[in-house]
């Protein structure tokens, strides 16, 4: 299975939880010991408690794009360390390491594909690349993905997974929030639909820009979604946070996501939603 093969590569983030022989994995949520192949087959959702394990950009592309239709664009755009930023490590080294570790050029991948035969522009973030943080390149690639949607009048789907704006690019990162939101404003004006999918985690400057601007906003179950990080809030208010705070279910309850969708249902729900919009004939495949 295409899905199975691709997801296998993406297990880097779960490595710590794998038991020594690599065949079994312990569920983060219920503690159940799961057979890895079985977990893969189940889209990396715990077969016992439905806990959604984090999957990477390959996983979401396999999940949402019709097999073999994803054509990536702008993968040649790369970050440069304009500010010569250094903390415990040089930013330029962090970038190199992230590229090496993930085989990706940045924390977001953009491309065209069809989903249930409907042409879309699919944009997928990858948390493994410096926590999915948004610097100049993430902002620029998302802006250009929106442009592509606008030019071709094809719906835009963005799958978010990010700790927020990238500190190592300081004010330049901050401005990507305005850049991406402004381009989505153009889609809004042109009546080109945009579906935002929030996965674990979606926080900070990413939530406070393109992620929260979908015509329809969907979330995976149990994802951490918020503006400020829980630790910062806890520190500020000096008390413990309520159970389930800033999880998908909390956002649904407070009116900030349209629906929580199980990973196995995501593609079909997107079809249902996309067919609501008056998409041009070429786009509906008629």
């Amino acid at each position, binding site marked *: 299975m295409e899905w199975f093969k691709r997801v296998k590569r993406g297990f880097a983030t779960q490595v710590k939880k794998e038991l020594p022989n690599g065949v079994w994995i312990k569920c983060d949520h219920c503690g159940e010991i799961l057979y890895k192949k079985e977990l893969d087959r189940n889209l990396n959702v715990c077969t016992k408690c439905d806990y959604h394990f984090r999957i990477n950009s390959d996983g979401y592309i396999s999940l949402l794009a019709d097999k073999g239709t994803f054509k990536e664009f702008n993968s040649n755009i790369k970050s440069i360390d304009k500010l010569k930023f250094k903390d415990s490590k040089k930013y330029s080294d962090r970038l190199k390491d992230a590229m090496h570790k993930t085989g990706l050029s940045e924390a977001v991948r953009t491309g065209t594909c069809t989903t249930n035969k409907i042409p879309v522009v699919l944009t997928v973030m990858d948390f493994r690349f410096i926590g999915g943080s948004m610097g100049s390149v993430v902002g620029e690639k998302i802006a250009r993905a929106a442009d592509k949607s606008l030019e071709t009048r094809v719906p835009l789907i963005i799958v978010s997974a990010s700790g927020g704006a990238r500190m190592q690019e300081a*004010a330049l990162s901050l401005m990507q929030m*305005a850049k991406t939101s402004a381009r989505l404003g153009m889609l*809004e004006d042109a009546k080109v639909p945009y579906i935002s999918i929030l996965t674990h985690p979606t926080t900070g400057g990413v939530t406070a820009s393109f992620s*929260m601007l979908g015509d329809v906003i969907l979330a995976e179950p149990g994802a951490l979604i918020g503006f400020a990080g829980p630790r910062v809030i806890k520190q500020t208010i000096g008390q413990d946070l309520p159970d389930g705070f800033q999880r998908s279910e909390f956002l649904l309850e407070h009116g900030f996501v349209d629906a929580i969708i199980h990973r196995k249902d995501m593609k079909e729900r997107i079809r249902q939603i996309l067919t609501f919009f008056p998409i041009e004939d070429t786009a509906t495949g008629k």
Partner: protein
Amino acid sequence: MATNYVLEFEKPIAEIEKKIAELREYSISEDIEIQNEVERLEAKAQKLRQETYSKLTRWQRVQLARHPERPYTLDYISRMIDDFVELHGDRSFRDDPAIVSGIGKLDKMPVAIIGHQKGRDTKEKLRRNFAMPNPEGYRKALRVMNLAAHYGRPIICLLDTPGAYPGIGAEERGQAEAIARNLREMSHLPVPIIIVVIGEGASGGALGIGVGDRILMMENTWYSVISPEGCAAILYRDAANAPQAAEAMRVTPNDLLEMGVIDKIIEEPPGAAHNDYDQAAAIIKKAIKEEIESLQDIPPKILIKNRIEKFGKMGFWSE
């Protein structure tokens, strides 16, 4: 203006000023020698001021931006806007005192003006939540901006916040959604929008009322993706390393001008804005007027297109 609060690097200047004040007290008899001495000391203070403020470190600028006697939004509004009427509330939840918004005249020109508002004394600080807005603050700001756009009036936004408030209620009421919406809506409002960073420009909390056609920064302010303390706590494991983080993030007006994020730096009166509110207000009023005048005749469609392109150009990458 005599200030009561003196930053470490301002102390040598403050000492000379104190001496001048003492001498003046004795010189009622118009003693020529004392007068000469006063003049000599004034020249010295002037020179020292120039030297000190021309080579401030990034961290010292951050400190000046937070100076407890620095003029705040309402200090500027009262000095540069006539007929000001504050408009309260987001029409949905409550009024957020951390953001002030209203309408008035810039000379004779009707404008909307919005800004983060810090408090001066403890009670006021608490009421204003240290200028850390909740979602309703951003929603109020957008409501007033939409009002201005509806009637074709320019918008002025004054930025001065340590960040959007990180609280339970803020998350429940959609802090992220409120900021995101403002970013998108401000990007396509059909009237000129002038942004001025007057103090602290922290993160999305500042940017939430910071999308415009012209972005100006006063000389002694900072603007970045996170506060130096926040950055230090995460990347340097200790908030005490804030001065180092301020250097690494390059948070000063000169830095942002170099990065292509802002358009212009507004010079402050000698000894920074807190030394002369009137002059500081006169200077930023002039700068804002010039910018509005340069934008007034641009058709709304072009104005919006230029604004979106302006932010589109920000950032650096290779391809």
